[in-house]
């Protein structure tokens, strides 16, 4: 199993990309993003309890879900703009715990069919500002950090390319 998640966030830009391949047909990948009973089982930070408060998986419908740990609740909500089975989902995303409203993210997730019953997910998030994007990347990612120097190799490889556009 060598399916690796790629995140591309060029410095100074208002967007980020996430790419990942899966050993499953895109119909199932699409279902895992639209069926609340499946979605709740994999999305969200490790060690947090996730509940879905609202789930209208159709165009114009809205959703809201909550992550909870140690009594702290973090709610996220948005509106589904387009749900085109099994190809793509377009919608908004916003964190409810900010001091002010309006830091909305527009997301597009595309499910591509690959040979051999496999599929590829390409997600693009567009933010109102660079600081919105950088804040999103910095927040809530309380992951243990491994040796940073190992990752330097990766960065150097990317630095030597003239431009690190998203694949």
């Amino acid at each position, binding site marked *: 199993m060598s399916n690796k998640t790629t995140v591309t966030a060029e410095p100074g830009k208002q967007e980020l990309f996430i790419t990942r391949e899966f050993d499953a047909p895109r119909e199932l990948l699409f279902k895992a993003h639209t069926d609340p009973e*499946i979605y709740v089982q994999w999305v969200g930070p490790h060690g947090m309890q996730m509940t879905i408060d609202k789930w209208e998986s159709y165009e114009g419908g809205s959703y809201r879900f909550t992550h909870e740990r140690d009594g702290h609740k973090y709610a996220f909500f948005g509106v589904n703009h387009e749900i085109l089975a099994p190809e793509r989902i377009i919608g908004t995303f916003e964190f409810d715990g900010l001091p002010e409203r309006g830091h909305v993210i527009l997301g597009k997730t595309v499910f591509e069919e690959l040979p051999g019953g496999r599929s590829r997910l390409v997600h693009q998030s567009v933010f109102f500002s660079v600081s919105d994007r950088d804040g999103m990347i910095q927040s809530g990612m309380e992951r243990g950090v491994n040796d940073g120097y190992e990752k330097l190799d990766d960065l150097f490889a990317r630095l030597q390319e003239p431009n690190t556009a998203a694949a």
Partner: protein
Amino acid sequence: MELPGYTRVSPKRLDSTFAALADPTRRAILGRLAKGEASVAELAKPFKMSQPAISKHLKVLERAGLVSRGLDAQRRPRKLEAAPLAEATEWLERYRQFWEQAYQRLDTLLEEMKKTERKNKQNKKQEKK
């Protein structure tokens, strides 16, 4: 945008790191310095740029703490400082790992979904018989 109680405090230094990294020439200079220290003249050569133009880029990189000056007083070689870059990669790497973990859970679920689908298909076939 910060998520209260949900945020790991991140150094302001990231801002200057990313501003410095936003330019392709500066990224290429760092790529060159990753292979070893180099003088301004040596750095200017592959870029078809004047030495003053390279010096300007180097100043931005120095201010961001990404580049420092070596000991040789004659050549005044520049060298790479890894610490801010480590922070910058860690920044994105944590976010990447967050999704990696979620997608690994999804991998497991997809395997289960595939099995269920296969069973359903078999059952339908048997019903037809």
